[in-house]
């Protein structure tokens, strides 16, 4: 709490006094997780600037430099900090570019699931009746099937529907849709719950009395109030989506090797594990694990901080 003063609190002071902000700065785990997540996202976003090499530019790759170990291991070269892969691409650069793709796919999939889930959830909660029953039954049934299996199945169908020559070009969209379609029920449930609470409040009744149309009430009044819990689900969902994408790519069902994501890199590197070239798998795997772990921690903290019962 700030001391009472004569002048009104500035924006920054009010921000600092916010309970969630306070809780954030007083849980070291959350701060570390947020910093790590932010650093990794920034590193991946600025991959073209930060990466020492461009892994997609054939002019910068030479097969002579292939399969070099990390710089600190005997036989490593200083310009390739984490070594090179079988094609002579710098591992650090491919990981930065791969991480970028993983994060983009994860974010897009979560956004799709969120838009779909929140829309259905708000409509379900506000309209009620048959609509509600049908939407929530579908969500229930879908929740009984593990997400990753569903994503594999939808992705498989999506790939099968595409003609062979288009498969690689559209693979990324198929993956996004498959993961997005898998995680909407979580969002729908949370949004519906929040809607049921909001719909009975006086300001919504007032809006109804002055004759606002239903869709406007849902968008302008109910939707913003579902955002808190939805944000928690979205953060945890991001970690899950990144894992799902990596898993699909590892199974050879996701992002093609021409524009590798972290999962694709691990898949490719896995083939060289037996020849002792551990770094081709190891570093992408570590990057993936650290990223997922940090996002997960952040999500855990958010769930506790935004939960009014725990405050």
């Amino acid at each position: 709490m700030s001391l009472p003063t004569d002048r009104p609190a500035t924006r920054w002071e009010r921000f600092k006094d916010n309970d969630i902000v306070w809780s954030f700065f007083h849980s070291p785990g959350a701060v570390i997780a947020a910093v790590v997540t932010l650093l990794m996202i920034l590193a991946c976003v600025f991959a073209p600037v930060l990466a020492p090499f461009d892994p997609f530019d054939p002019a910068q790759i030479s097969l002579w430099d292939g399969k070099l170990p990390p710089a600190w291991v005997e036989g490593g070269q200083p310009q390739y900090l984490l070594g090179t892969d079988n094609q002579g691409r710098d591992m650090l650069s491919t990981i930065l570019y791969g991480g970028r793709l993983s994060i983009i796919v994860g974010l897009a999939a979560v956004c799709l699931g969120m838009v779909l889930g929140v829309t259905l959830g708000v409509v379900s909660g506000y309209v009620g009746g048959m609509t509600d029953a049908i939407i929530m039954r579908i969500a229930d049934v879908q929740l009984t099937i593990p997400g990753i299996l569903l994503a594999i199945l939808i992705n498989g169908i999506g790939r099968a529907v595409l003609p062979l020559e288009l498969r690689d070009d559209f693979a990324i969209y198929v993956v996004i849709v498959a993961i997005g379609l898998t995680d909407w029920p979580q969002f729908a449930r949370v949004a519906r719950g929040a809607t049921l609470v909001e719909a009975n409040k006086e300001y919504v009744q007032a809006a109804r009395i002055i004759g606002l149309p239903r869709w406007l009430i849902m968008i302008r009044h109910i939707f913003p109030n579902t955002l808190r819990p939805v944000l928690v689900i979205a953060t945890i969902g991001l970690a899950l989506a990144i894992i799902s994408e990596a898993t699909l790519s590892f199974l050879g069902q996701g992002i093609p090797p021409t524009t590798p994501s972290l999962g694709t890199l691990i898949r490719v590197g896995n083939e060289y594990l037996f020849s002792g070239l551990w770094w081709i798998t190891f570093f992408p795997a570590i990057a993936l694990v650290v990223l997922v772990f940090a996002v997960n921690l952040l999500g855990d903290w958010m769930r506790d901080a935004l939960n009014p019962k725990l405050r």
Partner: protein
Amino acid sequence: MTTFILKRLAQSLLVMAVVSAISFSLFNFVGDPVNNMVGQDATREQRIEIRQQLGLDDPILTQYTRFMGNILSGDFGLSYRIKRPVDELILERLPATLELVFVSAIIALAVGITLGVYTGIRRKSWVSRVILSTSLIGVSLPTFIIGIALIYVFAVHLRWLPSSGRSGTVDLGWWKTSLLTVDGWRAILLPAITLSLFQLTLILRLVRAEMMEVMRTDFIKFARARGLAERAINFRHALRNTLVPVITIIGLNIGGLIAFSVITETVFQWPGTGLMFIQAVDFVDVPIMAAYLVFVALLFVLINLIVDILYFVVDPRIRLGS
């Protein structure tokens, strides 16, 4: 009771109808079935003949009913790639998957309950803390990375266990088992551990939480007051009371094991149904994909139906509420 089960049954049938409709449309919209049967160089007359033989010119509803009839008698047609009946292929691959799931369920249960009881009783010991924080990492590691790590350590580095495939199978006539030979066990160990880790951590945490709850109750205090041996209190009184939620969770998680078996089978090239599905997607082998879809849906519908009925039997509140 009857209405509850009937309702659930109707819902299950609806799910199966939707899934079978999806797999039916896979047949119709993915590729050209005639091309898949006769190849590119068949004449126009041959094609028309086959179209009529397959009944592809019939109204869509007639085709769907015929398809449903075939499914119900277990007939999914021939695999495009291997040219053998799909139901035969699935039955051939099923033992591998079921044995993998079975062994990993046993591992998850045995280790999970043991560690759960231990960490629940010795809450403050450093061993418990180590176990708990390791389990937290276990939850957030993707399955395939655990698999790769195990392969690297035990197969590539130490050379103790084989890295992939299923070996040492014994043919019992209707079931090829790998659980009767040492080779078979050596091959199943790594994939089974990989598959079990996630469930293991779930069971561990659940048993630990339940144990901590039970240890606070009056009847445990009373057992202590009676001077019963620590062992008897822990296992005969406390553990037994934690098992009801554990059993229901396990029921639900068999589905999870089957889902993740797709990934584990691919990592270890384990010749089960999951690997077959992944390969089928690569080759757009529609009959196998469709059959697997129906198979998985049926499995989940059955598991959920059984768990629902179990809840109903175990918990009187649900009985009264409905």
